Protein backbone atom coordinates (compact mmCIF):
# COMPACT_ATOMS: atom_id res chain seq x y z
CA UNK A 1 0.00 0.00 0.00
CA UNK A 2 1.40 3.41 -0.95
CA UNK A 3 1.17 6.43 1.29
CA UNK A 4 -1.63 7.78 -0.92
CA UNK A 5 -3.85 4.77 -0.30
CA UNK A 6 -2.95 4.88 3.38
CA UNK A 7 -4.09 8.50 3.55
CA UNK A 8 -7.20 7.63 1.56
CA UNK A 9 -8.14 5.04 4.19
CA UNK A 10 -7.33 7.48 7.00
CA UNK A 11 -9.49 10.15 5.36
CA UNK A 12 -12.40 7.72 5.08
CA UNK A 13 -12.35 7.26 8.86
CA UNK A 14 -12.24 10.99 9.52
CA UNK A 15 -14.88 11.75 6.88
CA UNK A 16 -17.24 9.23 8.45
CA UNK A 17 -17.08 11.18 11.70
CA UNK A 18 -17.96 14.46 9.94
CA UNK A 19 -20.69 12.67 7.99
CA UNK A 20 -22.14 11.46 11.29
CA UNK A 21 -22.39 15.08 12.46
CA UNK A 22 -24.30 15.93 9.26
CA UNK A 23 -26.64 12.98 9.84
CA UNK A 24 -27.35 14.06 13.40
CA UNK A 25 -28.06 17.65 12.38
CA UNK A 26 -30.36 16.38 9.63
CA UNK A 27 -32.13 14.06 12.06
CA UNK A 28 -32.52 16.92 14.54
CA UNK A 29 -33.76 19.21 11.75
CA UNK A 30 -31.21 21.76 12.87
CA UNK A 31 -30.16 23.86 9.87
CA UNK A 32 -27.49 25.78 11.76
CA UNK A 33 -25.79 22.59 12.95
CA UNK A 34 -26.20 21.12 9.48
CA UNK A 35 -24.37 24.04 7.85
CA UNK A 36 -21.61 23.86 10.46
CA UNK A 37 -21.20 20.13 9.88
CA UNK A 38 -20.98 20.64 6.11
CA UNK A 39 -18.36 23.33 6.61
CA UNK A 40 -16.34 21.15 8.99
CA UNK A 41 -16.39 18.28 6.49
CA UNK A 42 -15.18 20.61 3.76
CA UNK A 43 -12.31 21.89 5.95
CA UNK A 44 -11.30 18.31 6.65
CA UNK A 45 -11.17 17.60 2.91
CA UNK A 46 -9.02 20.69 2.36
CA UNK A 47 -6.60 19.61 5.08
CA UNK A 48 -6.33 16.12 3.63
CA UNK A 49 -5.76 17.54 0.18
CA UNK A 50 -2.80 19.57 1.43
CA UNK A 51 -1.49 16.51 3.23
CA UNK A 52 -1.80 14.42 0.06
CA UNK A 53 -0.09 17.13 -1.94
CA UNK A 54 2.95 17.12 0.33
CA UNK A 55 3.24 13.37 -0.28
CA UNK A 56 2.95 13.91 -4.02
CA UNK A 57 5.77 16.47 -3.87
CA UNK A 58 7.84 13.98 -1.93
CA UNK A 59 7.15 11.25 -4.52
CA UNK A 60 8.10 13.64 -7.33
CA UNK A 61 11.39 14.51 -5.59
CA UNK A 62 12.19 10.85 -4.99
CA UNK A 63 11.47 9.97 -8.63
CA UNK A 64 13.64 12.83 -9.89
CA UNK A 65 16.49 11.72 -7.59
CA UNK A 66 16.22 8.24 -9.11
CA UNK A 67 16.18 9.67 -12.61
CA UNK A 68 19.16 11.91 -11.90
CA UNK A 69 21.18 9.02 -10.55
CA UNK A 70 20.34 6.93 -13.61
CA UNK A 71 21.13 9.65 -16.13
CA UNK A 72 24.28 11.00 -14.52
CA UNK A 73 26.06 7.69 -14.62
CA UNK A 74 24.51 6.16 -17.71
CA UNK A 75 25.00 9.09 -20.04
CA UNK A 76 28.61 9.39 -21.16
CA UNK A 77 28.19 12.35 -23.53
CA UNK A 78 28.46 15.72 -21.79
CA UNK A 79 25.90 17.22 -24.18
CA UNK A 80 23.35 14.77 -22.81
CA UNK A 81 24.62 14.82 -19.25
CA UNK A 82 24.99 18.54 -18.60
CA UNK A 83 21.37 19.30 -17.75
CA UNK A 84 21.28 16.47 -15.22
CA UNK A 85 24.58 17.65 -13.75
CA UNK A 86 23.15 21.13 -13.32
CA UNK A 87 20.09 19.75 -11.56
CA UNK A 88 22.20 17.49 -9.35
CA UNK A 89 24.22 20.46 -8.07
CA UNK A 90 21.53 21.60 -5.61
CA UNK A 91 18.71 19.99 -3.64
CA UNK A 92 16.03 18.60 -5.95
CA UNK A 93 13.36 20.04 -3.66
CA UNK A 94 14.46 23.55 -4.70
CA UNK A 95 13.57 22.97 -8.35
CA UNK A 96 10.11 24.23 -9.38
CA UNK A 97 7.64 21.39 -9.02
CA UNK A 98 6.20 21.50 -12.54
CA UNK A 99 9.69 21.43 -14.08
CA UNK A 100 10.33 18.23 -12.16
CA UNK A 101 7.01 16.79 -13.25
CA UNK A 102 7.91 17.65 -16.83
CA UNK A 103 10.89 15.31 -16.74
CA UNK A 104 8.82 12.48 -15.24
CA UNK A 105 5.84 12.60 -17.57
CA UNK A 106 5.19 13.94 -21.05
CA UNK A 107 3.82 17.46 -20.84
CA UNK A 108 1.05 16.60 -23.30
CA UNK A 109 0.01 13.57 -21.20
CA UNK A 110 -3.12 13.95 -19.03
CA UNK A 111 -1.00 13.15 -15.94
CA UNK A 112 0.83 16.45 -16.34
CA UNK A 113 -2.41 18.42 -16.61
CA UNK A 114 -3.77 16.56 -13.58
CA UNK A 115 -0.76 17.39 -11.42
CA UNK A 116 -0.95 21.00 -12.56
CA UNK A 117 -4.59 21.09 -11.45
CA UNK A 118 -3.54 19.78 -8.04
CA UNK A 119 -0.68 22.28 -7.91
CA UNK A 120 -3.04 25.17 -8.70
CA UNK A 121 -5.51 23.90 -6.08
CA UNK A 122 -2.76 23.64 -3.52
CA UNK A 123 -1.54 27.18 -4.26
CA UNK A 124 -5.01 28.63 -4.00
CA UNK A 125 -5.56 27.11 -0.58
CA UNK A 126 -2.04 27.81 0.65
CA UNK A 127 -2.29 31.47 -0.38
CA UNK A 128 -5.78 31.89 1.02
CA UNK A 129 -7.34 32.44 -2.40
CA UNK A 130 -10.22 29.98 -2.36
CA UNK A 131 -11.28 29.04 1.09
CA UNK A 132 -14.30 27.49 -0.62
CA UNK A 133 -12.25 24.95 -2.63
CA UNK A 134 -13.84 21.52 -2.66
CA UNK A 135 -12.27 18.14 -3.17
CA UNK A 136 -13.21 14.52 -3.61
CA UNK A 137 -10.37 13.03 -1.63
CA UNK A 138 -10.95 9.35 -2.41
CA UNK A 139 -10.54 9.99 -6.12
CA UNK A 140 -7.59 12.36 -5.69
CA UNK A 141 -5.67 9.89 -3.51
CA UNK A 142 -6.27 7.06 -5.97
CA UNK A 143 -5.27 9.23 -8.93
CA UNK A 144 -2.05 10.37 -7.20
CA UNK A 145 -1.25 6.73 -6.45
CA UNK A 146 -1.80 5.80 -10.12
CA UNK A 147 0.15 8.76 -11.53
CA UNK A 148 3.21 8.10 -9.37
CA UNK A 149 3.32 4.51 -10.65
CA UNK A 150 3.53 5.88 -14.19
CA UNK A 151 6.49 8.25 -13.63
CA UNK A 152 9.27 7.47 -16.09
CA UNK A 153 12.46 7.31 -14.04
CA UNK A 154 14.73 5.39 -16.41
Amino acid at each position, binding site marked *: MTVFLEI*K*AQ*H*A*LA*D*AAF*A*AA*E*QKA*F*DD*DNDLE*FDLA*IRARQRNDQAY*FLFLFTRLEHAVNAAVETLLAARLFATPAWSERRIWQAWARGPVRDVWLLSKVEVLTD*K*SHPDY*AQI*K*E*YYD*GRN*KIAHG*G*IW*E*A*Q*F*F*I*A*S*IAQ*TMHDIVQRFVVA
Partner: protein
Amino acid sequence: MPLAQSSSLTPETLTRLAQILGSFGVVGNEDDWHFDSHDLPRSQYELETLLREAGYTGANLRRESLTRPHNGVDTIIYDPARYENSAAAEDAWERDYRKRWHDRIQHRVEDWLDRLNRLRSNIADWLKDTPDLSSLTIADRPSAMMSEELMIRFGVAPIQMPVFEIRKGEQRLVRFQPKGLWIIGANGRVDLVTRNAAPILVDQSEPLAGRSDWRMYDSRKAVSVPFSRQTFVDLVRAALQ
Protein backbone atom coordinates in the same frame (compact mmCIF):
# COMPACT_ATOMS: atom_id res chain seq x y z
CA MET B 1 12.10 21.94 -39.94
CA PRO B 2 12.24 19.25 -37.25
CA LEU B 3 10.93 19.99 -33.75
CA ALA B 4 12.96 19.22 -30.66
CA GLN B 5 11.86 15.91 -29.19
CA SER B 6 10.92 17.46 -25.86
CA SER B 7 8.98 20.32 -27.43
CA SER B 8 5.38 20.94 -26.45
CA LEU B 9 4.93 22.38 -29.94
CA THR B 10 3.47 19.30 -31.58
CA PRO B 11 2.43 19.40 -35.24
CA GLU B 12 -1.21 19.50 -34.08
CA THR B 13 -0.49 22.47 -31.83
CA LEU B 14 1.29 24.31 -34.65
CA THR B 15 -1.61 23.67 -37.02
CA ARG B 16 -4.06 25.04 -34.43
CA LEU B 17 -1.89 28.10 -33.81
CA ALA B 18 -1.58 28.72 -37.55
CA GLN B 19 -5.35 28.55 -37.93
CA ILE B 20 -5.99 30.97 -35.07
CA LEU B 21 -3.36 33.41 -36.35
CA GLY B 22 -4.93 33.22 -39.79
CA SER B 23 -8.44 33.91 -38.52
CA PHE B 24 -7.91 36.14 -35.49
CA GLY B 25 -4.37 37.44 -35.88
CA VAL B 26 -3.15 36.87 -32.32
CA VAL B 27 -2.56 33.86 -30.10
CA GLY B 28 -1.29 33.36 -26.52
CA ASN B 29 0.42 30.40 -24.86
CA GLU B 30 -2.70 29.25 -23.04
CA ASP B 31 -2.75 26.05 -21.01
CA ASP B 32 -5.35 24.42 -23.20
CA TRP B 33 -2.90 24.34 -26.05
CA HIS B 34 -0.22 22.62 -24.01
CA PHE B 35 2.70 24.59 -25.30
CA ASP B 36 5.25 26.41 -23.27
CA SER B 37 6.69 29.74 -24.36
CA HIS B 38 10.11 28.28 -23.56
CA ASP B 39 9.56 25.75 -26.32
CA LEU B 40 9.17 28.44 -28.96
CA PRO B 41 12.24 28.65 -31.22
CA ARG B 42 14.43 31.58 -30.18
CA SER B 43 14.82 32.65 -33.76
CA GLN B 44 11.83 34.51 -35.14
CA TYR B 45 12.65 33.10 -38.56
CA GLU B 46 12.46 29.54 -37.26
CA LEU B 47 9.16 30.19 -35.49
CA GLU B 48 7.66 31.73 -38.57
CA THR B 49 8.91 28.91 -40.76
CA LEU B 50 7.28 26.35 -38.48
CA LEU B 51 3.97 28.22 -38.52
CA ARG B 52 4.04 28.70 -42.29
CA GLU B 53 4.73 25.00 -42.73
CA ALA B 54 1.68 24.45 -40.53
CA GLY B 55 -0.48 26.57 -42.83
CA TYR B 56 -0.07 30.21 -41.76
CA THR B 57 -0.14 32.56 -44.76
CA GLY B 58 -0.35 36.07 -43.23
CA ALA B 59 2.24 38.80 -42.74
CA ASN B 60 5.54 38.34 -40.93
CA LEU B 61 4.74 37.58 -37.30
CA ARG B 62 5.83 39.28 -34.12
CA ARG B 63 6.25 37.78 -30.69
CA GLU B 64 5.92 39.76 -27.45
CA SER B 65 5.99 39.07 -23.74
CA LEU B 66 2.77 40.20 -22.07
CA THR B 67 2.95 43.33 -19.98
CA ARG B 68 0.31 41.75 -17.70
CA PRO B 69 1.06 38.01 -17.59
CA HIS B 70 -1.82 36.08 -16.05
CA ASN B 71 -3.18 32.55 -15.77
CA GLY B 72 0.12 31.17 -17.00
CA VAL B 73 -0.03 33.18 -20.23
CA ASP B 74 3.10 35.27 -20.76
CA THR B 75 3.63 35.35 -24.53
CA ILE B 76 1.59 36.35 -27.56
CA ILE B 77 2.34 35.93 -31.24
CA TYR B 78 0.55 38.34 -33.56
CA ASP B 79 0.15 39.50 -37.11
CA PRO B 80 1.28 43.16 -37.32
CA ALA B 81 -0.84 43.64 -40.41
CA ARG B 82 -3.88 43.18 -38.15
CA TYR B 83 -2.67 44.97 -35.00
CA GLU B 84 -0.56 48.07 -35.20
CA ASN B 85 1.42 47.35 -32.05
CA SER B 86 1.83 44.77 -29.30
CA ALA B 87 -0.48 46.66 -26.91
CA ALA B 88 -3.33 46.50 -29.42
CA ALA B 89 -2.64 42.81 -30.03
CA GLU B 90 -2.52 42.12 -26.29
CA ASP B 91 -5.82 43.95 -25.71
CA ALA B 92 -7.47 42.00 -28.52
CA TRP B 93 -6.11 38.72 -27.23
CA GLU B 94 -7.24 39.47 -23.66
CA ARG B 95 -10.77 40.45 -24.74
CA ASP B 96 -11.04 37.28 -26.78
CA TYR B 97 -9.54 35.19 -23.98
CA ARG B 98 -12.03 36.53 -21.42
CA LYS B 99 -14.95 36.07 -23.78
CA ARG B 100 -13.94 32.49 -24.60
CA TRP B 101 -13.57 31.67 -20.91
CA HIS B 102 -16.81 33.42 -20.00
CA ASP B 103 -18.67 31.41 -22.63
CA ARG B 104 -16.96 28.18 -21.56
CA ILE B 105 -17.76 28.74 -17.88
CA GLN B 106 -21.33 29.73 -18.71
CA HIS B 107 -21.71 26.53 -20.73
CA ARG B 108 -20.31 24.42 -17.87
CA VAL B 109 -22.67 26.08 -15.39
CA GLU B 110 -25.70 25.50 -17.62
CA ASP B 111 -24.60 21.89 -18.12
CA TRP B 112 -24.29 21.45 -14.35
CA LEU B 113 -27.78 22.81 -13.77
CA ASP B 114 -29.11 20.46 -16.47
CA ARG B 115 -27.40 17.50 -14.80
CA LEU B 116 -28.87 18.42 -11.42
CA ASN B 117 -32.33 18.74 -12.92
CA ARG B 118 -31.95 15.41 -14.73
CA LEU B 119 -30.84 13.81 -11.47
CA ARG B 120 -33.97 15.12 -9.76
CA SER B 121 -36.09 13.89 -12.64
CA ASN B 122 -34.50 10.40 -12.53
CA ILE B 123 -35.14 10.21 -8.82
CA ALA B 124 -38.79 11.15 -9.32
CA ASP B 125 -39.08 8.37 -11.92
CA TRP B 126 -37.34 5.83 -9.68
CA LEU B 127 -39.70 6.64 -6.83
CA LYS B 128 -42.76 6.41 -9.07
CA ASP B 129 -41.61 3.06 -10.51
CA THR B 130 -40.91 1.43 -7.13
CA PRO B 131 -44.18 0.21 -5.62
CA ASP B 132 -43.21 0.47 -1.95
CA LEU B 133 -41.75 3.95 -2.48
CA SER B 134 -44.24 5.43 -4.91
CA SER B 135 -46.11 7.29 -2.20
CA LEU B 136 -43.00 9.22 -1.19
CA THR B 137 -42.76 12.83 -2.34
CA ILE B 138 -40.02 15.21 -3.40
CA ALA B 139 -40.07 18.53 -1.56
CA ASP B 140 -38.01 21.51 -2.67
CA ARG B 141 -36.01 23.40 -0.10
CA PRO B 142 -34.51 26.88 -0.42
CA SER B 143 -32.04 26.63 -3.28
CA ALA B 144 -28.29 26.98 -2.80
CA MET B 145 -26.52 29.83 -4.53
CA MET B 146 -23.66 28.84 -6.81
CA SER B 147 -21.01 31.49 -7.41
CA GLU B 148 -17.72 29.69 -7.73
CA GLU B 149 -14.32 31.28 -8.16
CA LEU B 150 -14.18 30.81 -11.95
CA MET B 151 -17.67 32.30 -12.32
CA ILE B 152 -16.65 35.39 -10.39
CA ARG B 153 -13.38 35.74 -12.28
CA PHE B 154 -15.03 35.63 -15.70
CA GLY B 155 -18.20 37.53 -14.86
CA VAL B 156 -20.67 34.65 -15.02
CA ALA B 157 -23.81 35.43 -13.01
CA PRO B 158 -24.58 33.29 -9.94
CA ILE B 159 -27.25 30.61 -10.28
CA GLN B 160 -29.47 28.79 -7.81
CA MET B 161 -28.88 25.05 -7.43
CA PRO B 162 -31.91 22.94 -6.53
CA VAL B 163 -31.94 21.49 -3.02
CA PHE B 164 -34.60 18.94 -2.30
CA GLU B 165 -35.70 16.21 0.06
CA ILE B 166 -37.52 12.93 -0.24
CA ARG B 167 -40.25 12.75 2.32
CA LYS B 168 -42.79 10.35 3.68
CA GLY B 169 -45.55 12.67 4.75
CA GLU B 170 -43.75 15.16 6.98
CA GLN B 171 -40.88 12.78 7.70
CA ARG B 172 -37.67 13.85 5.97
CA LEU B 173 -35.82 10.83 4.58
CA VAL B 174 -33.05 12.01 2.23
CA ARG B 175 -31.69 15.45 1.46
CA PHE B 176 -29.93 16.22 -1.84
CA GLN B 177 -27.59 19.12 -1.22
CA PRO B 178 -25.54 20.18 -4.29
CA LYS B 179 -22.08 21.35 -3.26
CA GLY B 180 -20.59 22.66 -6.47
CA LEU B 181 -19.29 21.98 -9.93
CA TRP B 182 -15.56 22.67 -9.85
CA ILE B 183 -14.52 19.93 -7.48
CA ILE B 184 -10.94 18.69 -7.68
CA GLY B 185 -11.38 14.98 -8.30
CA ALA B 186 -14.91 15.14 -9.75
CA ASN B 187 -17.15 16.95 -12.22
CA GLY B 188 -19.63 18.14 -9.60
CA ARG B 189 -20.67 16.97 -6.16
CA VAL B 190 -23.96 16.53 -4.31
CA ASP B 191 -24.07 15.54 -0.66
CA LEU B 192 -26.81 13.10 0.32
CA VAL B 193 -27.90 13.00 3.93
CA THR B 194 -30.23 10.66 5.75
CA ARG B 195 -30.61 10.00 9.45
CA ASN B 196 -28.25 7.02 9.19
CA ALA B 197 -25.88 7.79 6.30
CA ALA B 198 -24.25 10.77 4.56
CA PRO B 199 -22.73 9.51 1.32
CA ILE B 200 -21.28 11.76 -1.36
CA LEU B 201 -22.60 11.75 -4.88
CA VAL B 202 -19.95 12.72 -7.45
CA ASP B 203 -20.18 12.92 -11.19
CA GLN B 204 -17.10 11.20 -12.60
CA SER B 205 -17.85 12.10 -16.21
CA GLU B 206 -15.54 14.35 -18.19
CA PRO B 207 -16.66 17.98 -18.44
CA LEU B 208 -19.37 18.47 -21.05
CA ALA B 209 -19.36 14.75 -21.84
CA GLY B 210 -23.10 14.92 -22.44
CA ARG B 211 -23.79 12.09 -20.05
CA SER B 212 -23.35 11.92 -16.27
CA ASP B 213 -21.50 9.17 -14.47
CA TRP B 214 -22.91 9.58 -10.96
CA ARG B 215 -21.20 7.51 -8.33
CA MET B 216 -22.07 7.26 -4.66
CA TYR B 217 -19.23 7.18 -2.16
CA ASP B 218 -19.78 6.14 1.44
CA SER B 219 -16.70 6.82 3.57
CA ARG B 220 -17.72 4.11 6.07
CA LYS B 221 -17.29 1.53 3.30
CA ALA B 222 -14.55 3.50 1.51
CA VAL B 223 -15.90 2.45 -1.87
CA SER B 224 -17.83 4.19 -4.60
CA VAL B 225 -20.60 2.48 -6.52
CA PRO B 226 -22.60 3.60 -9.56
CA PHE B 227 -25.62 5.63 -8.46
CA SER B 228 -28.30 3.46 -10.01
CA ARG B 229 -31.95 2.96 -9.29
CA GLN B 230 -31.02 0.04 -7.02
CA THR B 231 -28.48 1.98 -4.92
CA PHE B 232 -30.96 4.81 -4.59
CA VAL B 233 -33.79 2.49 -3.56
CA ASP B 234 -31.52 0.79 -1.01
CA LEU B 235 -30.59 4.18 0.44
CA VAL B 236 -34.23 5.26 0.78
CA ARG B 237 -35.35 1.94 2.22
CA ALA B 238 -32.57 2.13 4.83
CA ALA B 239 -33.73 5.64 5.72
CA LEU B 240 -37.28 4.36 6.20
CA GLN B 241 -36.22 1.82 8.83
